[in-house]
């Protein structure tokens, strides 16, 4: 068989490594065979290609040093920065918040972990817990961890020496320029060179190729030049409407913290591509970010009617039902996920919780057993914590205490477990231990209001009014609408005024 054909066939079978070896042999014989050269480039790129839209994440540096956002304190419901302020959204009272200061979401995405803590110090301290590692800049983000060969050394030197290549030569040949660009961007991860090539190429085709504009926009986005990226995407959209471009333009607006503009872009996209699930997902996610769960679920439902196997949509709807006191409905959605072949600890954990709250106690423990047997190191703590929760629910404080301690032994930074342990200790009358647990929980997770409130009410009972007063203010900072906290504060203030 012709070696070029076999290489091509290998590429089509996605056997990239073998394809690359074949191409290398061919290139050794004839270094000027452009077809083989392109094929090798494609194979190398495909090997490392990551969906940079899904993996996109804002780094610590971007979050603190770039202020592309225009409004520093936008009206509630118009900014992703202060989601707690939107109207009609869920509150911490009945839907717990994650470390990031957002309500827990149905699925974990890079974006859902993006916190906006107050200072860089806080942000740097947070990823010290192993689960929430965040890239320092988005240029060094997941793209490097997931893909990119630039860190691996290749035998016989790199395939293409970027510093020596004459980009101007290739720019005018679209057949070569496009694979080369993708190679530089995804394989070498050299945004500067990629941008250089894209600029030259878009000039060579007299700004008539929308593809290059999208690529330019991608480069600008990666470099953090949002406005330039916006212009390129808009200009590309004028020429050709493409789902990817709409999504990318939406991302630009999300980075600029203009969720309503991003929604507009996605809706325009839906006009061209009605019921397109990726666009609908994007809209649902933005609404979730705005803490507008009703709208978010509405869009997730639309997705499910189009694509009944969309894991993210099903999980999010299930989650919504669970936290709106409909565990039976939630159970149906999670069972659907199970039917679809999803078989992991998180799912069984959720199923267990739903069963418990739907009063199907026989199923509860077996679900958790499954969950524990499937659990990896990083979710064991959560599962033990939930078993502890159920133990508290059935009144078995001894089991609860054991479970919570197991949770802490699995993850020593599990703040809710500390909090619950504190409550258990308090019930046993061991005040000092309880207070210590509450303080530990509060220092680990300043975004939770429960430890503060518990600590404060404990101090209040013990007569340490000053400490109680200080702590309750922190509780209200974390959750301003918590009525018991407000009442406690009022009582304290009244007391102080009498003195």
């Amino acid at each position, binding site marked *: 068989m012709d070696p070029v054909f076999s290489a091509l066939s290998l590429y089509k079978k996605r056997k990239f490594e073998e394809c690359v070896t074949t191409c290398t042999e061919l290139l050794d014989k004839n270094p000027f065979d452009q077809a083989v050269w392109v094929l090798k480039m494609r194979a190398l790129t495909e090997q490392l290609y990551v969906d940079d839209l899904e993996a996109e994440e804002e*780094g610590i*540096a971007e979050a603190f040093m770039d202020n592309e956002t225009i409004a*520093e304190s936008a009206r509630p419901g*118009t900014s992703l920065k202060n989601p707690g302020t939107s109207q009609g959204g869920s509150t911490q009272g009945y839907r717990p918040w994650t470390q990031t200061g957002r309500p827990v979401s149905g699925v974990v995405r890079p974006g859902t972990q993006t916190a906006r803590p107050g200072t860089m110090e806080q942000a740097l301290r947070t990823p010290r817990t192993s689960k929430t590692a965040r890239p320092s800049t988005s240029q060094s983000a997941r793209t490097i961890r997931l893909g990119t060969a630039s860190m691996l050394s290749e035998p016989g030197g790199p395939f293409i020496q970027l510093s020596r290549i004459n980009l101007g030569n290739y720019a005018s040949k679209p057949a070569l320029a496009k694979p080369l660009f993708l190679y530089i961007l995804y394989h070498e991860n050299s945004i500067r060179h990629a941008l250089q090539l894209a*600029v030259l190429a878009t000039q060579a085709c007299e700004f008539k190729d929308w593809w290059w504009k999208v690529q330019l926009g991608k480069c600008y986005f990666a470099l953090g*030049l949002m406005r330039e990226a916006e212009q390129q995407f808009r200009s590309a959209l004028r020429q050709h409407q493409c789902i990817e471009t709409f999504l990318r333009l939406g991302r630009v607006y999300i980075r600029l*913290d203009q969720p309503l503009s991003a929604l507009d872009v996605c809706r325009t996209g839906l006009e061209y591509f009605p019921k397109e699930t990726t666009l609908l997902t994007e809209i649902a996610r933005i609404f979730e970010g705005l803490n507008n769960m009703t709208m978010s679920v509405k869009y997730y439902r639309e997705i499910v009617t189009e694509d009944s196997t969309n894991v993210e949509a099903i999980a999010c709807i299930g989650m919504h039902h669970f936290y709106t006191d409909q565990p039976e409905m939630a159970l149906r959605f999670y069972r659907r996920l199970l039917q679809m072949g999803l078989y992991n600890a998180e799912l069984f954990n959720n199923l267990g919780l739903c069963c418990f709250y739907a009063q199907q106690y026989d199923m509860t423990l077996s679900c958790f057993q499954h969950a524990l047997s499937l659990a990896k190191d990083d979710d064991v703590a959560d599962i033990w914590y939930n078993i502890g929760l159920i133990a508290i629910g059935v009144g078995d404080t001894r089991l609860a205490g054991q479970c919570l301690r197991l949770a802490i032994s699995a993850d020593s930074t599990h703040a809710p477990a500390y909090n619950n342990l504190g409550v258990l200790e308090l019930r046993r009358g061991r005040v000092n231990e309880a207070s210590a647990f509450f303080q530990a929980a509060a220092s680990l997770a300043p975004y939770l209001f429960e430890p503060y409130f518990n600590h404060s009410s404990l101090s209040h009972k013990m007569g340490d009014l000053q400490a109680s007063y200080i702590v309750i203010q922190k509780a209200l900072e974390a959750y301003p609408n918590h009525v018991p906290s407000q009442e406690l504060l009022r009582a304290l203030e009244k007391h102080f005024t009498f003195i």
Partner: protein
Amino acid sequence: MAVPVFTLQLNHKLLPGRITIGKYDGSHSCLTAATTADKVLIHSPHRRLGSASQISGATTWSQVNKEISLLSVNRNVSAICAGRLHPELEQDILVVGTPSSVLAYNVENNKDIFYKEVVDGANVIVVGNLSGYEYPLALVGGNCSIQGFDYKGNDPYWTVSGDNVRSLALLDYDLDGENELIVGSDDFDLRVFKEDVMVGETSETEVATILAPLRGSKMAYALANGTVGVYNKLHRVWRVKSKNRAVSVLSYDIDGDGVEELVTGWSNGKVDARNSRTGEVVFKDNFNSSIAGLADGDYRLEGRSQLICCSVDGEVRGYDPSRLGTLMEGNVHQDAVRELLQKKQALLMELKNYESNTRSSGVQQSMNAGMIPAKTSLQTTVSINLGSKPKGVPHVELCLATNNETIIRAVLVFAEGIFAGETHVVHPRDEELTSTLKVELLPPRDVPLDIHIKALVGLPRTEQFHVFELTRHLPRFSMYTLTSVSEPLLDELPTNFVSFNISERVQRVILWINQNFLLSSELEPEAGGGSLSLSFIALRDGSPLNISMHSAGRVVISTSSMTLAGDLVQSLASFLNLSNLQVTAEFPDELAHLGEWLEKVSNLQEVRIQLGADLAHRAGLVRNLIVRAEDARLLPDLSSMREWHSQLREVNDDLINSYNIRCSNHNELLEILKQINLTIQKAARLRVGQNKADVVNLSRSALQNNNLHSLLKIVRTGEA
């Protein structure tokens, strides 16, 4: 002094002249100002007054959104304006201009309407309806160009102006119910555009920094030299001059009489309101620091608007007519009494003078009484002096002479724009006093001038002088001297020329030349019509200018300066009342420049993208290093922290270097773009009426397509 109805402190330093007021939610006025920290401050007093805690679950509102909210622009804010840009929204849109971009932003919804790069910069922005355009436009004045954006971010309006645009105003100039655009630019000119055709032009003595529409066709203006005044159409109604600079001008009915007053905020912290018909001060107040801007809006939710003044220190005071009416009453009386007393004093003085005069004339013919012979008259001639002396420069000479032995002690010449400070005084030493006096005039630009002369005339050794006041008119092209009159040369064409056909007789053109040039003797039209050819020499640089006309109506003006050719065409066209004129122009030198410039622009743009990417890349490195250094600090790992910081320093130095490079690149680009805009403007000035607007529009599309060939053709023929 007036008592404000409210005062408040914003606690931010504001930039002068960049204040606006907008109803971003459609009903509540919000004062909006640019701060020195490259932010835009929005002050929303209604947020304090209520509506905050109505929505359950939103108590954080009061914490996060206090009265003041800030928008980060991250670039120097050069202009700001709020207005109804979106035809379907009942909300004001905030338009923010920086030296390189324009952002239209929906404040209420935290949404961009559009964001546009403008290479010409945004010196001034106004939002409003312009005649001939369906949607409201945000008009952005930059370096030599004016762009109008609609809410979609398209720019249907584009035109060039003679120099950097400093001020814009939308005004119903011809009272047809639709707004025209008034533009003040760095070349001291005020131009009126109806759609994209220039319908009026006048020249001021300084750069008009602020223009504000008043009622009807009236318009207030302020110049960089401290002059404030009112125009009705292009006739000046009144003006006053101050040693301070006006920062903001606004029309507001401060005394509640139904007629707007002209309120001015000055750089020394003074605010005054003047009657828009007479210029009389009706109100004033003082701030501790310079005024940043004025605005009017309903700030107390009481159904009528207040005058709001902001100082650069962030002090805000609001005034309204209710308290002012009674307050100014007493002042008016006092003023009237004082004025009458002054008049009385003046009259008494005059009477005294008359008395002493009659006494002295009765007793003796005294020298020091300042009597001069009754027949004394002052003759003035304006001529061209070619500057025969080695040092002499060719100039226009104003010669004053008396017809007898009286001498001219001193001459005050007042003319706009010739002298620094408008007035020139000549007073020879005692021993050089004669009955004639020559004044050198060097008009820097070709504009018709009225020279007001005040001459002190008296007998020698007298102490009192008679003042002769007279006005002379200096024709527009006084700085060109006629050298020869000859028959037109038919065959050879000069290298730089414009030519066009007019259906007028030669006599009319001769009449125009007689009116607009300074000639020693008036040209006599030849009997048989025939043709005409005149050669002039420019006094400024000695370059030649030829005007020739054939009997068939073909006129050729040959000069190396496109500007001069444009002036001549405009002047001739207005004299002959031409509504349209198409012109063929040949300026190979200028056109060669154009090609050079365009090439340079594309090179610079390319380099610019490179530099931008480079800069962003380095900035990314800096960010990364900072995070790493911070990380090392938190993990008390001092040695690596030290390492990161030293790397950071190197990258930072690089960053500064590449920034400087980019900066100079940008300045170069700006300069060239300005030159291109100027050339297009000159080319447009060679045509009249619709053809003029066509040149601008066609050049625009040629520039957008980067089509040099078609651009050159447009400049040459006026057609694409």
